[in-house]
């Protein structure tokens, strides 16, 4: 187990280093912020002075070295636009994004797991048809488009939910549905096919042969066995939701990391784009590591492979 842990952690650290290097150079491929930040009328002297004040006039390797030493000291730099530590800015926005991602995941699970289970237990039934329909819709409907539809129908026409913003639980409903929809589709399909798979196994046949009722079979024997793939997908889903929230946050004016990232990219705010990307990557890598570890605990075969 220890060797497995060490190996997975080592891989994660390498991955993080790769992300750090990649992010630094990719962000700089997008252009020079000075031309975009200053008013068009700004004379060349002001441009030069501004670049110097922002540290953008130094050679790239020097900027890179400073950035890396900063990262290891836990200092991700200051935002060019807001002139304060990017880590503070991210801290302000993180709760909104976590809240939305968790609500979306909860929505996806609440709908998908029972539906997938029901569909898988009775292939060809009405519920199964519904499960397959939801699975297909979830994977094909673009989430930002769904978001707009939800706003027009539930906010403008019916007036049930706020059209935008973060104003308590009611405002969470529409963005969570829009964001969780794709994940829901994937989960329904996964649950359904896992159930179909498990149902074919000998122990289920034995349970049935003993005359145990269907409901008991599905809850006591099928569910625990489909739980493992579902749990592992949930971890991946969660990180996907964090990243995928950019569109949804913009559509619903949700004040999270997604809208922040969109603005930062538009403003060529290098340090901020860098920090958000690094932060999200760290988050994703940690969750994958954690999932792998839990998985290793649950399933000893994985530790040896």
């Amino acid at each position, binding site marked *: 187990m220890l060797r497995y842990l060490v190996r997975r952690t080592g891989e994660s650290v390498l991955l993080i280093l790769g992300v750090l290097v990649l992010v630094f150079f990719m962000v700089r491929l997008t252009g020079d912020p000075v031309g975009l930040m200053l008013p068009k009328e700004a004379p060349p002297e002001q441009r030069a002075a501004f670049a110097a004040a922002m540290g953008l006039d130094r050679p790239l390797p020097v900027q890179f070295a400073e950035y890396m030493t900063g990262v290891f000291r836990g200092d991700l730099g200051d935002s060019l636009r807001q002139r304060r530590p990017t880590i503070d800015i991210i801290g302000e926005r993180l709760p909104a994004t976590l809240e939305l991602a968790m609500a979306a995941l909860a929505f996806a699970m609440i709908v998908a797991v029972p539906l997938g289970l029901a569909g898988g237990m009775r292939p060809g039934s009405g519920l199964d048809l519904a499960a397959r329909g939801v699975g297909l819709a979830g994977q094909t409907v673009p989430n930002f488009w769904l978001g707009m539809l939800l706003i027009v129908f539930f906010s403008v026409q019916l007036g049930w939910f706020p059209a*935008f*913003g973060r104003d308590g639980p009611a405002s969470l409903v529409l963005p969570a549905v829009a964001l969780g929809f794709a994940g829901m589709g994937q989960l329904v399909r996964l649950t359904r096919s896992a159930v179909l798979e498990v149902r074919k196994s000998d122990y289920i046949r034995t349970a049935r042969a003993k005359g145990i009722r269907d409901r008991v079979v599905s809850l006591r024997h099928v569910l625990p066995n489909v739980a493992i793939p579902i749990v592992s997908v949930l971890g991946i889903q969660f990180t996907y939701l964090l990243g995928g929230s950019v569109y949804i946050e913009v559509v619903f004016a949700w004040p999270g990391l997604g809208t922040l990232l969109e*603005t930062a990219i538009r403003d060529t705010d290098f340090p901020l784009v860098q920090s958000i990307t690094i932060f999200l990557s760290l988050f994703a890598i940690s969750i994958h590591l954690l999932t792998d570890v839990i998985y290793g605990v649950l399933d000893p075969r994985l530790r040896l492979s």
Partner: protein
Amino acid sequence: MTHRTLRTLLAAVLAALIALPSAFAQETGDELVVALSSDPTSLFMPRTADRTASNAAWSLFDSLVWIDDAGEIVPALATDWTVSDDGTEYVFELRQGVAFHNGEPFDAASVVATWETGKDDSNDYADSFAAADLVEAIDDHTVRITTPEPNATFLTLMANDWAMVPPAYIAEVGLDAFAQDPVGTGPFRFVSRTAGDRIVMEANADYWEEGLPRVDRLVYRVIPDASTRLAAIRTGDIDVANRLTADQVGVLEGEDDVEVISYLNDRVYYVAFKNIGAGVGTPLEDARVRQALNYGLDRFGINQAIFSGQANAAPGFIVEGNLGYDPELMEPFPYDPERARELLDEAGYPDGFEIGMGCPADGYININEVCQAIAASLSGIGVDVTVDFQTTNAYWSEPQYAVTGPMYVDSWSSEFGEALPRLDGALTPGNYYTTWEDEKFATLIEEIESEVDREARAELYVEMHELMREDPPFIYLYQPVIFEAIDADLVGYQPRAAEEYYLRSVGFAD
């Protein structure tokens, strides 16, 4: 889980969902809610990177002078001022008895501090403050400001950018903290800000101008997506939704609670020519060719096809709403392909020529379509234009548009009510974005810049227009129309041609 418990649970969830919205119904009353299309970078004026930020910030501040709705400079925190005969020295008498929101008195020291903090190189708008050489207090309520040379638009510049700040408070907390919790003398005082979500302000009860502001609370909500702003004005959650398109406001037809307003934006779209860099040695060096391109482009057809007619054909760089504009004297080039071909023939290009044109992909509304339409239209006079789409970052970060070919599409706005910023920015040699260098333009622009008399300046603009018509450095395209939707009960909301608005006199009809 039994069927019954599942059913009960579902019923409970549904009931909660239906009950929730009413719990969050908002009381509006005397609260004005305005949408912002992006989260302001800063509320410290010299660092307000865009119009959205400066619009929000101006609710908190005042300048020494003000531009009224007629475009005239009027007193604000200065009650009176004199200008020296050589036009380089201004003496302002300051309004007495005015205090900042924290109680600090407004006086001559505040003006000096405003200039000193404003001209710091790290500020986006340092240039506006560097327009003054020296700002000194003569006594507590008199200030002398010196400019290096006569500057026709100095007062306009002050009205637009010089938001007065409290020196003692800034000294105590520092600029970064000030930007987070700003204090001014303005009609509203800062209450709170939730990053990416909202900025809350309340009326300044001690505002120096009697009877203003006209609402108790002002809330800015950040809504980046235009369709969401449209939805929010329809649900009544906001009172002002800006930056909408003609198609979007079409949806609002027949809605009694919402009023659609539209106005011409003081922004000119154009195709620029280069006589430096990639433009050297091309047919563009011949004035007849540049005229031919202006005659040969169907700008009216482009407006109709791409903007449903909701744009004005631009007569030049001096457009409706600008000082010196005269509809009789300044008509757009007519669409006359015959004349265009004749001119090309005279210039020695009877069969036309091939030329490249840069285009800032997605940089402006419908700009990709506009670029393609330009190429299609000019092919009608035998000019074969290759459109080169560039990302906007690369496009605008290179001085002199080094990434583009001999022609490129761009636009330039002005918040002055005068064409000077775009003339100077795009035609004064050596400027970051100047790609057409011609001494006669540069000389006339300098004259305009130092002409302090308004009437005389208006005449110079007419002269400039004529020069730019005979020897065009651009193909003039269009001036767009801006659409906004507001609560039908709103009174006193009057945005100006560069999308700037001031909310101190906005209220609700009884």
